[in-house]
């Protein structure tokens, strides 16, 4: 708090430039310096781009087959031939991590999409129609949120069965309650606004008002929850797979890879460490970008 008094700006600086308080710097320089000032955002973006490319075109990064068994190459330490080493069946771990991106990332996309879809249906219904629909939906949300989330996801997995899609659906359904609550409050906010009142007064139909006015205005906060939910979905799906409730072998999902490598941790720790660090890096990058966009939105 005391720093404001400690650094009085010399009066000379104010006269130097037209913009008070800002250093005299060209526009080009500001743009050139942007990646240096926001280096963490740049790194996060690069990590995400690589992860997405892994998921879309794994062949560019890893040339071998993720399920190809090499009888002579079992449990090799990391080397130039096998960057992350090989597992107990002689499969190249780096290739498996690269190919695992597809399961992990598409799983979280499915989970978030499902969460938003279910959440917005319930949230919009409750917010728009109010009365008993609102009461019922809100009670339902209360109940879903009162069950510890990950446990609810496990319960849904019991119903749906094992598999990456099922795990994604379980995570998505669990998160839909949070989406529904947010979207309901956004719809309520929009409903109380003058532009909706004007639209209703000028005779617009319910569906038109909802789609043309309410939905676009509720999008911003929802998008910021979406970006956060992506990271949570990746973690939860990986955790479910780690517990053996998600992706099934031989699918190289990240959580699965960690679980498989766990038995060799004393002698071959690299089998666990690389996939584990990959999950952490991707989620960290995702959260960093999410925070960056949230900060930009605020300004």
């Amino acid at each position, binding site marked *: 708090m005391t720093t404001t008094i400690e650094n009085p700006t010399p009066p000379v600086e104010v006269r130097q430039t037209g913009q008070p308080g800002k250093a005299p710097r060209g526009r080009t320089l500001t743009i050139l310096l942007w990646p240096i000032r926001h280096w963490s955002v740049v790194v996060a973006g690069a990590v995400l781009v690589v992860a997405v490319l892994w998921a879309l075109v794994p062949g560019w990064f890893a040339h071998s087959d993720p399920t190809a068994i090499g009888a002579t190459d079992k449990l090799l330490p990391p080397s130039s031939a096998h960057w992350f080493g090989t597992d107990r069946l002689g499969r190249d771990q780096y290739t498996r991590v690269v190919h695992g991106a597809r399961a992990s990332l598409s799983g979280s996309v499915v989970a978030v999409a499902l969460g938003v879809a279910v959440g917005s249906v319930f949230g919009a219904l409750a917010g728009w129609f109010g009365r008993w629909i609102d009461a019922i939906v809100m009670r339902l949300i*209360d109940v*879903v949120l009162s069950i510890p989330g*990950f446990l609810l996801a496990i*319960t849904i997995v019991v119903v749906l069965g094992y598999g990456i899609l099922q795990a994604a659906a379980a995570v998505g359904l669990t998160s839909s309650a949070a989406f529904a609550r947010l979207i309901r409050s956004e719809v309520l906010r929009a409903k109380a606004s003058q532009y909706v009142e004007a639209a209703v007064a000028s005779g617009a139909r319910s569906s038109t008002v909802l789609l043309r006015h309410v939905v676009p205005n509720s999008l911003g906060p929802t998008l910021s*929850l979406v970006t956060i939910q992506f990271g949570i979905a990746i973690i939860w799906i990986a955790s479910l797979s*780690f517990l053996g*409730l998600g992706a099934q072998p031989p699918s190289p999902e990240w959580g699965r890879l960690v679980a498989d490598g766990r038995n060799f941790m004393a002698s071959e720790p690299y089998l666990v460490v690389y996939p584990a660090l990959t999950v*952490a890096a991707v989620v960290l990058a995702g959260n960093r970008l999410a925070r960056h966009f949230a900060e930009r939105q605020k300004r």
Partner: protein
Amino acid sequence: MARYVLKRLMHTVLVLWAAYTLAFILLTALPGNAISNLINNPQNQLTPEDGKLLKAFYGLDHPVVVQYVRALDALLHGNLGYSLSSGVKVSDLLGDALPGTLRLTALGFVLGAVIAAGVGVGGSYARWNWLRTLLRSFPALAASVPSFVIGILILYYFSFQLHLIPAVDDGTFLALVGPAVTLGVMISAPLSQVFSASIAATRRQPFVHVLHARGAGERYIFGRGVLRNSSLPVLTMLGLAVGELIAGSVVTEAVFARNGIGQITLNAVNTQDLPVVQGVVLVATAGYVLVNLVVDVVHPLIDPRIRADILAARSKRTKRSTGSTPTGPGVDEAMSPRLPEEVAAR
């Protein structure tokens, strides 16, 4: 005040009943269960009569509604049913596993709170800029690393490399440290984030400026004003963290191969032992909701503003606009601490 507590208590009971019903509906949608798996397994060589007998024993030959009413009736008598795979009472099964899990979660809770307090205070007041920056980046980092990764790294370095803690649960306190630190780091992420944000918000308030202007020291202001004012959102967050602790113990117990509720849950899921899954959901939800009930009741006790709000709401008999979740102390939106979305999303 008594009326407020009673109202919250009734709400809690209702939520528990609804959660149990939801789990029941979810799980009866299932095509298979442990009994039909047992009957259909050709290795057991059961005749159709044996199958009928088994189903009758577990009451599975009745319509779903009858099953539900019976389960609810048994529940009210403290009976959670019988495990389909082992025939043991579910309440006994959970009762045996609960102490271990409770010890783990309790220590994890304490560690999480201590880490969060350190990060929150240090991130705001540490003398060196680099330390503040480092501590401030902690919540985002801890929230991004899955708990099984934290657990495995702890296991690897402290068990396999340094031999400081035992790799398997041998009943000692040391064996508890690894999993408890894993849980603690996991829940300290949202806690420290809320605490830091809350301290920063409080320090911008006029009364802090006034205290500064009158020459009070930073330490005095923190102890007298900032700490108490910024700990309220953390209290709410502590209640929410319990849910994460319960869920996190499933993963942590799997990583450290500990006996407990988590292991029972996984076994029940793998064998489709529905009464056990349902029992776990009920017990976990009960714990979560009850802790949040306590938080809700403690809130007005320590914050006179909320107390006044409850009294005002009662005298005016105004209907509250938003339904209260287990998280919200029954106060106005503007009054209650606003949680960052990253946290509210959980």
